[in-house]
């Protein structure tokens, strides 16, 4: 257990608590039960997608495609429910399958075509949005199925359903990353791909798998998005990929790969959503929200990059000398 709840969680957890405290102290309505429940709804979609984004980052890749893929999948789901007449119980698994397949497609091109994931997923980001527009002449499709909404708004024992999805998928992801061969291989590939090759790890297969996971989690997010608004739209999910990556980064995942804790991504997502919620409650315009999100990402990466200096500074401030500074710099070189 100490493996999962390790020191990597302290920073992101502290950040989340500090941000929550600041918002709670400055905004009266923040702690209203209604707002808190709303918060868990808000965080769910980005936090679920961020599981995939983070796992891709662990393997030293990047996934920019998730936001557009959400739009595409909501349109496909809407098309199936509204115009093709496929029942919901069949449509949902099909959407999950499609998400996985789109991820597989991106993964194969990236890993076997040896094209950097930044490029393949950037291409997908643009192409998926275009594909989404080919449905229903590019117009949103509304009122899909009355049974869809409870998936998002339903409650079990008084707790909103998305809370259970979060628990389920984060437990599964944490288990995979910390206790399975696949998780270990993902960290190994992200840590040192050429060493991974020489230890017999099938690096390309592992890289591809991370994109399949990302595609699947994006499909989960897309279903929730459709359920939330009972519709599909080619405009859904704008900048969602960036929020998901931001959640990973605020959670301390190293963009160089190989390092990070999946549970910290949940805290990263919470931090971001709490900030957005605080700004919302104070009626800040969306322009300000984007500026703040940008600053948070910068700060999170900055803290990661300047960790050695910061611990040195802390040491000087609190009289605890730090010896790791010089050795860190040398080893990173």
């Amino acid at each position, binding site marked *: 257990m100490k493996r999962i709840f390790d020191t990597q969680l302290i920073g992101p957890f502290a950040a989340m608590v500090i941000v929550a405290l600041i918002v709670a102290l400055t905004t009266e309505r923040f702690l209203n039960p209604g707002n808190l429940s709303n918060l868990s709804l808000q965080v769910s979609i980005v936090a679920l997608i961020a599981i995939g984004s983070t796992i891709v980052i662990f393997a030293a890749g990047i996934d920019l495609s998730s936001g557009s893929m959400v739009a595409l999948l909501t349109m496909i789901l809407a098309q199936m429910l509204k115009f093709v007449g496929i029942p919901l119980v069949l449509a949902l698994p099909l959407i999950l399958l499609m998400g996985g397949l789109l991820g597989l497609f991106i993964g194969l091109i990236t890993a076997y075509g040896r094209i950097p994931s930044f490029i393949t997923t950037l291409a997908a980001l643009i192409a998926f949005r275009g594909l989404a527009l080919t449905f229903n002449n590019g117009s949103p499709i509304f009122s899909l199925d009355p049974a869809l909404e409870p998936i998002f708004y339903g409650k079990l024992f008084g707790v909103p359903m998305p809370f259970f999805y979060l628990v389920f998928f984060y437990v599964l992801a944490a288990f995979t990353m910390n206790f*399975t*061969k696949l998780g*270990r291989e993902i*960290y190994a590939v992200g840590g040192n791909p*050429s060493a991974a090759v*020489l230890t017999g790890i099938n690096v390309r297969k592992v890289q591809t798998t991370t994109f399949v996971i990302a595609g699947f989690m994006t499909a989960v997010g897309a279903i929730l998005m459709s359920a939330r608004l009972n519709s599909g739209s080619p405009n859904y999910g704008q900048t969602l990929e960036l929020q998901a990556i931001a959640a990973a980064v605020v959670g301390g995942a190293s963009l160089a790969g*190989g390092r990070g804790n999946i549970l910290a991504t949940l805290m990263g997502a919470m931090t971001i959503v709490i900030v957005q919620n605080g700004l919302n409650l104070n009626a800040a315009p969306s322009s300000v929200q984007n500026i703040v999100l940008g600053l948070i990402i910068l700060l999170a990466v900055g803290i990661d990059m300047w960790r050695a200096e910061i611990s040195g500074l802390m040491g000087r401030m609190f009289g605890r000398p730090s*010896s790791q500074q010089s050795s860190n710099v040398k080893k990173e070189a």
Partner: protein
Amino acid sequence: MTPATPLWEFVDITKAYPGVLANDKVCIRLMPGSIHGLLGENGCGKSTMIKTLSGVQQPDSGQILHNGKPVTISDPQAARELGVATVFQEFSIVPTLSVGENIFLGNMPRSRFGVIDWAKVHNEAARVLAEMNVDVSPETITGSLSVGEQQLVEIAKAVAMDARMIILDEPTAALGEDEIERLHQLLRNMRERGTAILYVSHRLDEVERIVDEVTILRNGCVVRASGETKINVSEIVSAMVGEDIGEHYPKEQNATKDIVLEAAGLATNSGVKDVSFSLHRGEVLGLGGVLGSGRTEIARALFGTDELTGGQITLNGKPVRFRREIDAIRAGLALVPENRKFDGLFFNFRASGNVTAASLGGLSRFGVLNLKAEEQATHDLIRDLEISTQAEEKTVNFLSGGNQQKIVIARWLFSASDILILDEPTQGIDIGAKIAVYKLINRLTREGKSIILISSDHDELLAMSDRIAVVQHGTIMRTVDASDLTHDDLVRASADTPQSKPKEAFA
């Protein structure tokens, strides 16, 4: 013969890190026109000393005298202005820039209008290279040169700035025999011109060949300062380790008659041609040859990394075909790569993740890892191989080179491989750790495992191998008993290869 004032004199230099006294009243005198060896095991305080000398850090106490006058070397720029150039173990050249640009990096000659004076860059660079007797055009892209040539470019930077003192940290770690000879010739020329040279190395055979005097550090203290010109390797070794270690190469004869692996006519697109040899159970087969002769490529061909375009590998009498590394690993092969940093270690893992990386399949059931077994096995291997116990808790980037190398070897002990290919297993690690690796080789062969040893350290190769295959141009010229070969034979047998560029690093 001692000139009146040393060029540099370091008196009672002390530097402490939390919990470690890295340098304890170290004194070194550097004379112009003299090559001074700074020796000691890893962690003895050499690196700390070099950092102080090159202005990277400040000593806690002590005095630095330049031409007899006290000075402070406040930062690397100040060191440069005082004529001190440092060639660090990790190159600081930019591979995508030309040789000329690298030589003047950060110090580009400018014309009146502040624009870079390219004519001067190239002319000056060409002059420096000619002076050094290095046949490389200043316009060549540095990354396309061999490692040895890159090293020379690194030194050319020091020459270009008219350094009066040059510090070389492990300058030959990546060089082949004739490149080392070239470097040494260059250093002798510089010595003639009155440059003071501080030469830091683990390769004692080299030290014997080139240095004029030595300072030996142990646990941060000077244990031996010699002003003499005659240097005795075994004395140095015992001074460094702090005890009489007896046999430097504790070779055991464990070779048997059974053939475990047979290669016939192997060929690859990476330059391996018609390679045939056999490997016996318990044997150490050495591959001798210069850097770029194709030894590493032969290893890659055996391990399934490079595809065979011809030939046949036979394992225990059965023909095998390795389509990828995992096939070779499952068949009992192991590869400890030449560059443990780039191809061997996972710096994001502690010892455990590194040890089990090649055996995850065996360690898991239905894809779930047995973490308890992993911790236990790692714990045992750390104890067995005398690896720093820090490795259990910390990621391996905090470990010394010797400990890191032992962890890479531990990986293949854990995977229970029968045939280990060790590519430069003792490169850049200290004497104590080297001997530990030799003992490990003995233990493996005693257990009936076979080893293919690739080494550029001829003494090591001769002493630790049962037979040696001399590799040239990607093929094995001949295979002889190690006892029938002398150091000179090996140098001569492998040296008449024209310089070939090393294959591009692993993609």
